[in-house]
């Protein structure tokens, strides 16, 4: 990295337009995160229509900032209402609320805020260190390596990130099927278009994601729209008191949460919510006082709070380097990157280095801004609660309509949004995870393209997929990922049978 590139990146980020966008999206993110039922992914999906009309850097800035803010803000209703503001807070909602009930709301909120910032900055540091190195490595990749890498990514989403693997796999297959709609395939044959010209270019991802993440969420929220929201603690004192002591007391927990969060974020399909669950579990497992967990103990909040924010930056590593989203937020971001001609991949680091470093700077900026703005959100939370959800939901729906319409100026987008919104609701009701479907939709076209290109290069020989060293390794890894659990299960079955 030369000083010149860094200077250009600073110039891109410190543009007044970008700063205004950052502050506005920070407020938007805090609001969406703090309102129970509205998620960070929904914040990203709702931002998309606004980004159509922005230059690339402000567009990315808005998403980076809004998500960082929303993941933290989700902790506020966790602490005060026992309702997670976003799924990423769900892991430690009971713990945080129990702490508030003991009259330590300040500690609970302060801990969420401070360790969110620490986790976020850690994830950013890893992103800055790892992404360029990986990109240089990835320059040597051909279609064979990309095929395996995409397949490994998709398998991770199913086999690591979900509880019910069969339902996860079905979800992924549905996503892949949606990705094969349209002309964009190696044979350029219009598949599954039902005679609609709007589908020739493929199923447009943005309306689908707005449907799956916003419409389905609003449908769920209508059921609880009458539920009164009363906070467990009415006045909040100094949330920063005692934080330094916590940092000194739990350095290992902070580091472990941040490392695990970044790693889980970087794994395709698993995002901040799964990172928080895993970190909370790990914290309890390795704690010296596991009996205190669940009674309002701050240790788990430290570890899981750092974890979910670090996952956000972690998810950008595969997204920027390989174009493989690490979570559902980056799945949407990748769509926006393509729209802004910042096609993700290793060449992005060569051809557009200032933009890449601008993204890094934006992550640092967003995490630092989280301290003052997060503090303000905690202070103003009663005002946020006063905004009636019954009036908010219809506004969100109209905004969804506009977002789905504006991408192609066609009502087909809104119909797609509606269809996939209902589908996502049905899927989640019945235990089908939505993330693998999204990943399938984003990566399906690439997977097919790399596969067919490789097949043509190899003249139909399947063994060619294992001949190059990296491709071979990835291929074996992929097969191992599928075969190993089955073998282990058989082995266990055999041991039980033979006593």
């Amino acid at each position, binding site marked *: 990295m030369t000083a010149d590139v860094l200077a250009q990146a600073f110039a891109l980020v410190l543009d007044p337009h970008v700063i205004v966008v950052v502050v506005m999206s920070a407020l938007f993110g805090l609001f969406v995160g703090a309102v129970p039922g509205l998620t960070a992914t929904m914040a990203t999906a709702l931002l998309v229509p606004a980004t159509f009309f922005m230059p690339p850097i402000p567009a990315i800035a808005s998403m980076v900032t809004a998500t960082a803010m929303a993941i933290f803000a989700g902790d506020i209703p966790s602490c005060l209402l026992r309702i997670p503001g976003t799924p990423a807070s769900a892991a430690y909602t009971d713990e945080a609320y129990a702490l508030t009930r003991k009259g330590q709301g300040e500690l609970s909120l302060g801990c969420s805020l401070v360790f969110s910032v620490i986790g976020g900055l850690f994830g950013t540091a890893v992103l800055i260190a790892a992404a360029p190195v990986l990109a240089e490595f990835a320059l040597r990749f051909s279609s064979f390596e990309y095929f395996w890498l995409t397949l490994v990514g998709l398998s991770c989403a199913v086999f690591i990130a979900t509880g019910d693997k069969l339902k996860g*796999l079905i979800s992924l297959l549905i996503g892949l*099927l949606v990705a094969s709609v349209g002309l964009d395939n190696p044979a350029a044959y219009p598949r599954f278009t039902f005679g609609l010209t709007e589908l020739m270019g493929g199923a447009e991802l943005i309306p689908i994601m707005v449907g799956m993440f916003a419409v389905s969420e609003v449908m769920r929220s209508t059921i609880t729209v009458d539920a009164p929201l009363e906070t467990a603690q009415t006045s909040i004192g100094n949330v920063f008191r005692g934080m330094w002591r916590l940092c000194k007391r739990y350095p290992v927990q902070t580091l472990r949460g941040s490392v695990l969060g970044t790693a889980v974020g970087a794994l395709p399909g698993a995002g901040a919510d799964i990172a928080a669950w895993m970190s909370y579990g790990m914290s309890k497992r390795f704690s010296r006082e596991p009996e205190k967990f669940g009674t309002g103990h701050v240790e788990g909040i430290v570890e899981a709070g750092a974890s979910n924010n670090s996952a956000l930056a972690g998810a950008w590593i595969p997204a920027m380097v390989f174009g493989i989203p690490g979570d559902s937020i980056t799945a949407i971001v990748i769509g926006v990157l393509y729209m802004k001609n910042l096609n993700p991949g290793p060449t992005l680091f060569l051809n557009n280095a200032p933009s890449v470093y601008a993204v890094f700077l934006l992550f640092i900026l967003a995490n630092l801004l989280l301290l003052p703005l997060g503090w303000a959100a905690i202070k103003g939370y009663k005002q946020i609660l006063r905004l009636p959800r019954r*009036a908010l939901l219809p506004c969100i*729906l109209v905004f969804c*309509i506009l977002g789905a319409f504006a991408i192609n100026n066609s009502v087909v987008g809104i119909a797609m949004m509606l269809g996939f919104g209902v589908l996502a609701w049905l899927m989640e009701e019945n235990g089908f995870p939505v993330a693998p479907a999204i990943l399938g939709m984003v990566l399906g076209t690439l997977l097919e393209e790399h596969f067919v290109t490789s097949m043509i290069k190899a003249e139909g020989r399947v063994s060619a997929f294992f001949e190059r060293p990296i491709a071979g390794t990835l291929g074996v890894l992929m097969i191992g990922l599928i075969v190993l659990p089955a073998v282990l299960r058989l082995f266990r079955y055999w041991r039980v049978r033979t006593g």
Partner: protein
Amino acid sequence: MKISDAILGALIALLGAVTLWHVRSFPPIPGQNFGAALFPGVVAAGLLLCGLLLAARGVVTMAHGARAVALDPWVRNPLTVLRFASVPAGLLFYVLASGVLGFHVAAGLAMLAWLLLFGVRLLPAVAMAIGFPVLMHLAFYKLLRVPLPWGVLERIVFP
């Protein structure tokens, strides 16, 4: 609403089978013995297989007394059901009617219905149903140049 895995699995398997049958008509890439049908074909075969597995699993749980369709408690409250159904119904109304009525009228009507159903009082609801689409018009039509359909208002605005 929890639908039994037996039913969902059967539906998914059916989707796989229909797709598998449909992709047979896709042409190959010239000079290769595979083409447009390969990828969706593999996916459809996967859906068929997974659907059958899920259905089999569902049949086993149903044999242990699981219901075919289990409804959540909120389904007993008609107002909640109405509120819930109003979301897809309102969006469907917009899809069908916005061409004729235009964005402002169609979105305003849908919004009014939602606001009243969710329990906002009449006057604020009417004010919001008029105000919010106008605000969105300013943001999307004026500022961002999205060609929102005028519909019935076209003759009034552009006489």
